[in-house]
């Protein structure tokens, strides 16, 4: 079964592709993946497909789940730094207000309180 983080990625992919085009989204996702690899070298095996979907991440997360079930030390989901990077890129390119607008397309009911940002402003 697909992890919640992967489902988040996929919703972002679908909606950002409408806005930026499939090629536009794929470029962003590739950059985000490269940045996330520095945090989790395990992402080295993951690839971004032509349509922006991810290849290899599902298998990685499945393996983590299996390891966890077998009593291994819990590890972070590798898709989380990827999503963080993706949102970080949107923030860099478009700024806080527009990024929040785009996220509202994906999650219309979401309350985007940016409680962790440096200035604590609402997104």
């Amino acid at each position, binding site marked *: 079964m697909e992890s919640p983080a992967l489902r988040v990625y996929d919703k972002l992919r679908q909606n950002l592709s409408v806005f930026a085009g499939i090629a536009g989204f794929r470029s962003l996702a590739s950059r985000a993946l490269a940045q996330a690899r520095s945090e989790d070298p395990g992402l080295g095996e993951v690839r971004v497909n032509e349509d922006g979907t991810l290849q290899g991440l599902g298998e990685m997360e499945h393996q983590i789940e299996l390891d966890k079930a077998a009593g291994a030390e819990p590890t972070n989901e590798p898709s989380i730094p990827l999503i963080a990077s993706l949102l970080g890129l949107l923030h860099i390119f478009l700024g806080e207000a527009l990024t929040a607008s785009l996220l509202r*397309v994906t999650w219309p009911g979401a309350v985007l309180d940016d409680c962790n940002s440096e200035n604590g402003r609402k997104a």
Partner: protein
Amino acid sequence: MSTQDKVTINKLPTGVPGLDEIMGGGLPEFSFNIIAGAPGSGKTTLAHQFVFANATPEHPALYFTVLGESAIKMLRYQQQYTFFDPAKLPGAIRFINLSQVVLDKDLGAVLEQITKEVEKANPAVVVVDSFRTMVRKPQSDMELQAFIQRLALFLASWQATTFLIGEYAEDELRDNPIFTVADGLFWLRQTPERNSIVRKLQIVKLRGQDSVPGLHTFRITDAGVQAFSRTFGLTGHAKNPPSHRRLSLGIAELDKMLGGGVREGDSLLVAGSSGTGKSVLATQFIAEGIRQGEPGIVAVFEERPQAYAERAASLGLDLETPQKDEKLSILYLRPLDLSVDETMHSILDAVQKIGAKRLVIDSLAGFEMALSPGFRADFRESLYRMIFALTGIGVTILSTVEVDESFTEFPFSTYSISFLTDDIIRLRYVSIDGQLRKIMVVIKMRGGNHAKDIREYEITSKGVVILGKRLTNYQALISGIPIHSDRSNPTEEPSLDTGIEHKT
């Protein structure tokens, strides 16, 4: 068909300052329009301004991006403009990328995708940016014509006002099926002239609308595109009937020479070489207006407002108080890279803001020099349009102009701008009895008697003071090197001619 049977075409605000006036009141609702021009000419910015001015959650806008500038980069830059309101996204404005369908499929699929999105969102405004990239794929003229026809028909039926944006060269204007179908065609140009860039906008066509023809200057600032109508936004203003009222220049003897003062709504030119008192005379004219309750504008190019006011104070004329009371505005215009139309719009804005009845332009030479070289070619034409527009609504204008003085000629103006003026006063130096003295003469007054006298004057602490009698003991005064001819009993009062207009 009576007027009440005719359909009313709503006009939508363009969101571009000055453009509604150029379009004849705004953009016709449900029209199918093209914004054409070279890359960097402001097409996307103009479309964004329209979208942000009109889109609401109830009447949203769909902005289709195609191949070309990526949507992310486009929004990165566009959000820098002050009109960009991020709160309008995504409720009122939605961006949809069509690149993939354009790359992978044919025009039929593109139309199908647009149709699907339009039916889903029911938008009031649709933009396709850039449309040109969409129709670059090889296809027959008939295919393209059919596509455009169907797109235009569909979007109009869905009550959408549409913009297609495209990079087109001027020579593509002819025989292009896209331009034939369009209701509105707006062409943006930018051409380098010496070290400046001149931006011009043309409404090539606009169905059902009385747009202002010709090329209009526009500028792109952090507020977006701003257009400057060739008619300065005064086309809708009723022209005042010719006035018979005479305005005092604040110099009683000069008023007499002018047959009672300058006619209200006239354009008066004061020409003379450096130091002859043109600015002093202009200051007295504006100060007299303030005294009579007529607000005024002074546009200066060669000194700063503070210095101008201080010089007026040295003549006993208070220009500080009326500035505080918003009865007077002194504009310091050193635009350098501004167009002549933009500069004139600044003057017009000031005139309209305080309801000015008198305007001083000091000086025309300074005005021209302050303009970027690329705009100087338009100077006289634009000046003519501004003077015509302002005098038409009853503003009386006094312009000063520097004349190269020679002691062999008596040019009225080096500017060939006599046609701009109703009245001309000429000031000049003259060599008399071993002194360099000053004389003035009224050269021309349209529609009125004026004195033919050549009068000597001085500039004193009270301003321009005309000395008692006309100079009768000299011949060839206007040459600057008169010949003394001893005649007694000079006439005491200035003599008026019988309405003969002096040709200049």
